[in-house]
């Protein structure tokens, strides 16, 4: 590992890991990528805490609980450029479908009333180990400053590749028409 390679960190907050899958979808370009960068805190290498300053942070998923907010703020502190990857990070995505429903109703449906629920004690999980759930799901740019957005559910591998290459070369990121997709 060379010392001067820029570092990339990634996180999945309230997302499904589909955007990370899309990153793996860059296929053999992944070999070029690891020549270009070192991965820091990321599920890709399972590094749990930042080891230093990162050039680029990729955030998948929005903020649905306090843990998501903590991780996101940590990324903002450690990354020069922070990128919202995918619709959940940009607009809350599927998790944000709960935003029109009061939190108590969501919890009751999930743990008490749902058709597949088996919960004889009738307890809604409430342990200090479990991150506090937020009143609604927040897009990342409503929590911290985000520098770039890569829309898509997930963004295509080509979109992620184009963005990473541009950012690592220090160029401004402008996606061509074919790479802007919300689905």
């Amino acid at each position, binding site marked *: 590992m060379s010392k001067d390679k820029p570092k990339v960190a990634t996180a999945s907050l309230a997302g499904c890991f589909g955007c990370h899958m899309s990153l793996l979808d860059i296929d053999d370009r992944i070999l070029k990528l690891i020549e270009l960068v070192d991965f820091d805190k990321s599920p890709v290498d399972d590094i749990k805490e930042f080891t230093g300053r990162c050039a680029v942070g990729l955030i998948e998923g929005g903020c649905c609980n306090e843990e998501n907010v903590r991780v996101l703020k940590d990324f903002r502190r450690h990354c020069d450029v922070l990128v*919202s990857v995918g*619709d959940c990070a*940009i*607009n*809350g*995505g*599927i998790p*944000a*479908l709960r*935003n*029109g429903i009061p939190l108590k109703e969501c919890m009751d449906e999930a743990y008490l009333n749902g058709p597949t629920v088996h919960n004889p004690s009738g307890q809604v999980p409430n342990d200090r180990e479990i991150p506090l759930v937020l009143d*609604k799901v927040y*897009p990342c*740019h*409503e929590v911290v400053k*985000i520098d*770039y*957005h*890569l*829309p898509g*559910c997930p963004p295509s591998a080509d979109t992620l590749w184009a963005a990473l290459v541009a950012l690592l070369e220090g160029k401004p990121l*402008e*996606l061509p*028409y*074919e790479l*802007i*997709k*919300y*689905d």
Partner: protein
Amino acid sequence: MSGKITFTIDGKEIEARQGQTILEAAEDAGIYIPKLCQMKGLVPHGSCRVCTVMVNGRPQAACTQPATDGMVVENDTPELKGMRRDIIDMLFVEGNHFCMFCDKSGNCELQAIAYRLGICAPKFPYLFPNRDLDASHPDIFIDRNRCVLCGRCVEASRDIDGKCVFEFVGRGPHKKIAVNAEAKLVDTDIDITDKAVNVCPVGAIIKKRVGYAVPIGERLYDKEPIGSDVENNKK
């Protein structure tokens, strides 16, 4: 009067017929002016303002403003693009647009304009309003989460189908599309073959059981931006 007039759009000379709107004349000349509420075959009513252009230095809706001899129109300027972007951004945050599972994705005019304007994320905070849907009808459903209040369905039902199935109720943020029945769409006399079912620019009025028929990559706006058809007609 010969009935012919000439004016300029972004410095280019356009010939138009007396009585044409700026938008009609522009499209005939192969110039795309973004539009959302206007649709060929329906009377324009200028509600969305996406088509706003500068006419002799003042903002006007191109879909309702008649072209006049010698007028100077600006269309493709950074200022107008920014203003259109703001309108589109607002339409996204004021509704609940989950494109990832929307039937209309790839064929949606709102989404397509956003793509064409290069929007990666809206700049205003999301409102996540509570809007209802109506799946009561066997063939058609309404998802008000995606309605942009363009009024096309209202007009098509009234003027083409002769039925008045749709009308707006409420004002401001409470304005919504309503149906002409005690309760639900199923109680109206709407039919799957009605024009009103085919005019929605977004995924708010949807035909059941035909969704996702065209694969990703082959949908209307996958390859070419909205407006390309107009621009390809360039004389």
